[in-house]
């Protein structure tokens, strides 16, 4: 017993620090929005957004058309959870902003916004290891900056509004091409009311050494955030993009519905890292897809810890020969959460390879779902797919599902899919407890061991954070 008490005291010492961290995202400031599109969605809402943003005509037309598509599309409840019916589109506020252009210096950012991001540690991380940062507060980008030398090399890192206005010649050809408006109901919604998000262009042959980061923050209640990100890596370019997100815990639900399009030209490589830690009343319904041209590589490294319901299936269309697509996914579903995540791998050229590794953990009454699609169409040769999905269930009330769909045409391919479901074995816990590790700490160790090989795929700074987040979420789940 004496072992246990020692460990408990050590735990208590770190407890305070941890407690502060746990509620790190759970605060909000009073709203002072200059522009507010009001509650509910209609053509007027969309015109209002277009007016405020001073959209070019083609963007306004794009939005209005998308709105029609949104109305005509049914909710995908024939296969997805009924919880989607709890989203009330008429009770959401679709646009809240101060109307300011993004600031290039943190000093120019409004004090409460600056304070928000400082509490979240964004400027600090920027100084430490980032090549560029964009910080979005409700609908608009508050701060956006990229290191000078990158700007000189021709890197564009701005928000979507600036992208479509000032870099139309690069932006427009790919905008909405990877994910068409009508892809699903939520991509249509995003296309109608999108605001914020990043536009990134990396010129030919440039390998950006440090990651670029975006931070998405929801501050207002009953709000819907609809950022739109487009990243283009030109021939031979390389970039890593990271996004983080938090929101305070409000009484009512919040909607986050982003569209992220990636374009990797010949030989380019894009890595997109997400650490999603929305509060537990956010509906997180995101469409993410990348196109990989010849010899290019698109990697989605995706970690979902927060939100009430996440539905996210990052995809890669392997359009050129020898293109590679990869999805690394970690999901942790605690009580009251449903993490419905997965991957979509579309092989569209010879000798393309894709890899999906998904690990999910269900705690308490949480539900983790893997949903995937692999398509290898006719007349292709030498395509390979590997899919692995493992689920770990902590409590008797935890739930997990797996729904893959694999289509292979032709006999010159190799696909394999494997899934397993397991618990942390009593023997393992007993072994550790025997050596003086408390049951909770043993469980935490076992869980970290389960996801360890995937955590190492995240950049160093994130993987440390991630392990801690997971430890926190696991706390109190045993005994």
């Amino acid at each position: 017993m004496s072992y246990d008490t020692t460990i408990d005291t050590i735990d208590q010492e770190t407890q305070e620090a941890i407690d502060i961290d746990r509620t790190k995202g759970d605060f909000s400031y009073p709203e002072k929005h200059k522009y507010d599109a009001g509650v509910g969605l209609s053509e007027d809402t969309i015109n209002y957004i277009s007016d405020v943003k001073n959209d070019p005509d083609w963007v306004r037309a794009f939005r209005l058309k998308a709105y029609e598509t949104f109305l005509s599309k049914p909710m995908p409840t024939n296969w997805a959870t009924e919880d989607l019916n709890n989203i009330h589109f008429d009770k959401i506020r679709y646009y809240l902003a101060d109307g300011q252009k993004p600031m290039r210096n943190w000093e120019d950012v409004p004090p409460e916004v600056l304070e928000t991001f400082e509490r979240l540690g964004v400027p600090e991380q920027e100084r430490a290891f980032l090549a560029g940062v964009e910080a979005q507060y409700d609908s608009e980008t508050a701060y956006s900056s990229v290191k000078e030398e990158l700007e000189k090399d021709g890197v564009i890192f701005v928000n979507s509004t600036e992208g479509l206005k000032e870099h139309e010649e690069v932006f427009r050809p790919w905008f909405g091409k990877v994910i068409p408006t009508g892809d699903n109901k939520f991509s249509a919604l995003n296309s109608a009311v999108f605001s914020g998000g990043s536009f990134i262009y990396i010129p030919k042959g440039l390998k950006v050494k440090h990651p670029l980061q975006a931070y998405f923050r929801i501050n207002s209640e009953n709000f819907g955030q609809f950022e739109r990100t487009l990243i283009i890596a030109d021939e031979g370019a390389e970039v890593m993009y990271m996004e983080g997100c938090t929101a305070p815990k409000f009484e009512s639900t919040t909607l986050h519905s982003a569209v992220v399009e990636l374009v990797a030209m010949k030989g380019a490589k894009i890595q997109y890292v997400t650490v999603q830690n929305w509060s537990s009343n956010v509906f997180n319904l995101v469409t993410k897809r990348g196109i990989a041209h010849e010899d290019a590589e698109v990697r989605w490294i995706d970690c979902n810890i927060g939100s009430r319901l996440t539905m996210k299936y990052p995809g890669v269309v392997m359009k050129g020969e020898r293109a590679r697509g990869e999805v690394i996914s970690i999901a942790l579903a605690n009580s009251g959460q449903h993490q419905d995540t997965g991957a979509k791998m579309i092989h569209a050229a010879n000798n393309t390879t894709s890899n999906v590794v998904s690990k999910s953990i269900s705690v308490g009454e949480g539900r983790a779902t893997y949903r995937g699609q692999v398509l290898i169409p006719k007349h292709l040769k030498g395509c390979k797919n590997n899919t692995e999905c493992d689920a770990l269930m902590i409590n008797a009330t935890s739930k997990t599902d797996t729904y893959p769909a694999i289509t292979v045409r032709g006999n010159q391919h190799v696909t394999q899919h494997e899934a397993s479901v397991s618990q942390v074995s009593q023997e393992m816990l007993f072994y550790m407890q025997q050596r003086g590790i408390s049951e909770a700490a043993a469980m935490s160790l076992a869980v970290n061991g389960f996801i360890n090989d995937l955590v190492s795929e995240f950049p160093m700074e994130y993987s440390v954070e991630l392990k801690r987040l997971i430890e926190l979420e696991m706390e109190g789940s045993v005994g």
Partner: protein
Amino acid sequence: MSTTIAQMNILETQPQTASDLPEWFVALQQQAWQEFLNAPMPSRKDEVWRFGNLKQLDFDGFSDEKNTEIKYSIPTLPEGVICLPFAEALKQHGDLVKEHFMKAEARLGSAKFAALHKARVKSGLFVYVPDGVRVEKPIEVSHVIAGNKEAIFPHTLIITGKNSEVSVLDRFSSANEDDAGLCIAFNDLIAGDGSKLTYCAVQELNLNSRMIQVNATTVGRDAHAVAFTLNTGSQWARNESLSLLNAEGAHSDMLSCSIPAGTQQYDQRTYQHHAAPHTNSDLLYKNTLFGTSKTVFSGLILVDEGAHYTDAYQTCRNLMMEDTTEANSMPGLEINADQVKCSHGSTAASISDEEIFYLQARGIGPQQARRLIAKGFSVEAVERMRNERLEEVVIEAIDRKFSSIR
């Protein structure tokens, strides 16, 4: 009946239950006919029809006026065993039939056609094995569809008492190569506590025919059920197999071999439902695809809340023999309990050059080498039946199929 054979249509003409059958059955068939008329046709939006070919569901113009020939080959049965044609069983053992006939909900997509089957069924097999009795040799039934645009609705109902054992073989074939036939078959397998029930279906319909086969297995305490299906015939076949494990120690083996060639399409949906703790199910589906054939496999393991200590496995393997074949797999899991061991796996690949080379180096021609490997691939599932006679019948059918390809 005033309608002539030419006007008779299984989708429009209300079925007439034979007057000598029990009243409850007459009422049941009438009710089922209404259910059939009211049930919606499956649509593109139905997840259980994803990748499926809805065009194959047009059964217009089929009639079921003729009495199809059913051959029964029944071994010497121990005392107490009931083995009768379905209609005969309704007359003599109506209560037993009533208790078990089509109690499972057809939840894998063919509810409408299950209702049609219920409304039109008049033939099939009924087997009841009393407690502690073992039937050594398989009971064999052969259904032959004769006549163009002829439909049959055979029903197989097998009930095993405590610690009993029985095996049944159902064969489906066509009278000739050309007549378009339709077979909507249903089998209810009720394995009583501690019993062993083996069911084997061999489908060799001609290439103009279609088949819907629905299997519903209920496995009792410490019982062991084996359901095997071989598909080599028909232009299109849909198999729905549902296994309910509702008592501790229940074990279910769900097995299948399919060898489509040409333009054949097989659509298979399975459901392993673990409703009690300490239950075990093991599924192995093997598809060998030739020509421009296509297979769909969609499986789900559902572990109910409280069904702890479940072991459930699901494997679907596709051997792609030609570049023009297509395999779709949707292996699914839904786990709501703790202390569960579950896995599923799905693969699609062709025979590797090394394997062919190995056999060629031993003097076996490439064509024969490929056939040998393909056969070995199928046999793995066949052997799991552990029943000599049934394995022999299935392997003969597999050989027949292989020899018909090129």
